[in-house]
């Protein structure tokens, strides 16, 4: 049977198991929206295309499935760009479909025309401009395959309006064959053997785990490895939840705002076992001072991540889970008793802490209370800045896909739409967005999306009236000259704003109101904005100044 391009697109999405699309209509995607009008795929109409991209991303992070977003040509597509770049930096499987002007007009500066494949080339794993309707089903098949396999990432399919209307025979390909794309899935047995030998010889090993552990579903194997070799485990921001932070071997996060025990341990280690992490500058600090005595085993599916920043002694390219299964069979336990004693001393002497107040609300206290109220069993999204770092420090993540945050790109405005996507993917779980008063305003229009579609996410705004993280840098490194970082203490009125959209709003100004407010919010079957008026000039510590070695930390109270 012959189908139109628009119909082929939607049928292909069904074949890929797509349940929900986030998007916004426009002139050159009308044929697609006409098909979606009575399709079984749920369509979530956002209020800004950036929200669609982040929601698809949040859905993907929460479920492990590929997120899908859809926008029109020109401004619709360019509004997706920040969301696509966010997904690219954090290796999130996403397929973004954009309308394009008709093929005869491409290159003519037509109304709402933008060179979308050109614009998105450096921020996608791959992209397509569909020129023949006959190619469409294969392109969709390839797009989902590329997005979700190997090191995942976003794929853009730019679909001209005339192609959407042309007809052809629809056959969905059963398999794809791309001679230029064959990710390595299994580690080289010789390299695994070498790694096992090195681990057996080590005296001060540390496991450094990143987002790759979560993507590959290797959390169980990682715990097994840590327990088998009795090595402490630190995770990156993206790796939070990949190893339970309540585990006796967990050191929490490392890096610029990592724990002192994690930073000291990796610096003093003699062997780093990196799993699905990429030695980002926020993790290593000053590169030439990083872990000077450590050999490095690096397990990663992306060969280009190996020896990019830190010279690796034993690279093992492949899927983290497959490799850890084999490594666990091969390793023998080294004697780490002395080492663990030292690590535990660091942990004992430098726990994460903050100076609590009897009356004022400390932002860290709010996060601890959310942790307790949810019993650690919620999906926590964050925005970017202090809210994100405090969440990483004070919420104890124990399961994969429970922490959702823009790590690589650091996109303010990410958390709220991502929470909407996560809640749609996991309706049975409480979903929070821990926000700052700056970030939440970057995609606040999605209140309408959440309320209208009955997606009851809970937003905890840590309202200090400032762009807190930038203010912190100004305080520490620019002589407290708060240039353009003060926002306002009363504009907007977040409670009234929430209510204007039909959501519930609460303002919390006293410490003793914090816990009851969170519990009340969890019982309300609606979107809730909790406006926590918190200590203004609270800082995130420990902090490694930019360009310093990561054991040169500013600790709580060390400046006083």
């Amino acid at each position, binding site marked *: 049977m012959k189908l139109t391009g628009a119909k082929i697109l939607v049928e292909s999405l069904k074949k890929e198991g797509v349940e929900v699309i986030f998007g916004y209509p426009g002139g050159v995607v009308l044929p697609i929206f006409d098909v979606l009008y009575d399709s079984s795929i749920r369509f979530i109409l956002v209020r800004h295309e950036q929200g669609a991209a982040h929601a698809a991303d949040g859905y993907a992070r929460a479920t492990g499935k590929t997120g899908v977003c859809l926008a029109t040509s020109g401004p619709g597509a360019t509004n997706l760009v920040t969301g696509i770049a966010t997904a690219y930096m954090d290796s999130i499987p996403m397929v973004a479909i954009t309308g394009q002007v008709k093929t005869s007009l491409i290159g003519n500066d037509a109304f709402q025309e933008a060179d979308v494949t050109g614009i998105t*080339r*450096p921020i996608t*794993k791959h992209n397509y401009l569909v020129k023949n309707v006959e190619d469409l089903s294969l392109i969709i098949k390839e797009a989902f395959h*590329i997005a979700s396999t190997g090191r995942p990432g976003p794929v853009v399919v730019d679909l001209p309006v005339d192609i959407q209307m042309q007809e052809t025979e629809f056959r969905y390909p059963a398999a794809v064959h791309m001679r*230029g794309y064959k990710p390595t899935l299994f580690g080289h047995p010789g390299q695994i053997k070498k790694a096992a030998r090195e681990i057996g010889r080590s005296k001060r090993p540390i496991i450094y785990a990143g987002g790759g552990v979560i993507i590959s579903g290797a959390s169980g194997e990682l715990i097994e490895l840590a327990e088998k070799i009795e090595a402490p485990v630190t995770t990156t921001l993206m790796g939070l939840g990949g190893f339970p932070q309540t585990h006796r071997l967990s050191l929490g996060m490392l890096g610029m705002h990592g724990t002192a025990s994690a930073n000291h341990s990796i610096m003093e280690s003699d062997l780093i076992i990196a799993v699905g992490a990429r030695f980002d500058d926020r993790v290593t600090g000053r590169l030439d001072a990083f872990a000077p005595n450590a050999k490095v085993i690096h397990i990663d599916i992306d*060969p*280009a991540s190996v*020896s990019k920043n830190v010279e690796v002694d034993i690279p093992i390219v492949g899927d983290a889970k497959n490799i850890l299964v084999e490594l666990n069979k091969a390793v023998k336990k080294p004697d780490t008793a002395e080492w663990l004693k030292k690590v535990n001393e660091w942990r004992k002497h430098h726990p994460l802490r903050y100076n609590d107040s009897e009356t004022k609300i400390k932002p860290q206290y709010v996060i601890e209370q959310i942790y307790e109220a949810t019993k650690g069993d919620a999906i926590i999204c964050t925005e970017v800045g202090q809210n994100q770092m405090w969440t990483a420090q004070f919420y104890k993540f124990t399961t994969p896909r429970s922490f959702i945050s823009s790590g690589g790109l650091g996109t303010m405005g990410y958390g709220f739409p991502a929470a909407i996507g996560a809640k749609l993917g996991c309706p049975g779980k409480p979903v929070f967005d821990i926000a700052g008063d700056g970030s939440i305003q970057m995609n606040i229009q999605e209140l309408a999306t959440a309320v209208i579609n009955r997606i009851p996410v809970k937003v905890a705004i840590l309202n200090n009236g400032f762009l807190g993280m930038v203010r912190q840098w100004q305080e520490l490194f620019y002589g407290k000259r708060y240039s353009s970082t003060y926002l306002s203490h009363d504009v907007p009125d977040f409670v009234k704003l929430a209510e204007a959209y039909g959501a519930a709003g609460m303002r919390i100004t006293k410490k003793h109101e914090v816990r009851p407010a969170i519990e009340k919010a969890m019982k309300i079957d609606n979107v809730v904005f909790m406006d926590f008026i918190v200590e203004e000039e609270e800082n995130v510590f420990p902090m490694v100044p930019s360009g310093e070695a990561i054991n040169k930390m500013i600790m709580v109270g060390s400046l006083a």
Partner: protein
Amino acid sequence: MRHIISALVENKSGVLARIAGLFSARGFNIDSLTVGETEDPTVSRMTIVVRGDDRTLEQVKKQLNKLIDIISVRDLTKKGFIDRELLLFKISVGQDTRQKAANYLEKNHARVLHSTSNTLTVEFVGDQEHVLKLLEGLSDYGVKDMVRTGRIALAKE
């Protein structure tokens, strides 16, 4: 150090833009880049001359390999290879220098394709060593226009 990268790529629109974009985004320096069809019309071969230390080159190769439309990447530098470059150039000659120039070109296996009363248009094909040698000697004459194809190369095995 200069390296010669030989890449087989899908013969599709946009592939050159992907590669050029990758080099500029990651700050790699290209000396020259050539592209043309191979014996298989669906595959093109790119020969890229790039400068950098071993570590940079390792990244260049890995990043190129990540592109979906790239089928394979080889660094020919450390293996045996044959390379050629084609030069077309015009030199100024007067009555007194014409014969001397013609002799120099002939000695270096360069071919005069066209001549006018005051110019010679010349073709030269050679490997880098010979190209450099020819260019050195040409500085005695006024080179007016020059176009170079960039190097192409094949591994010996």
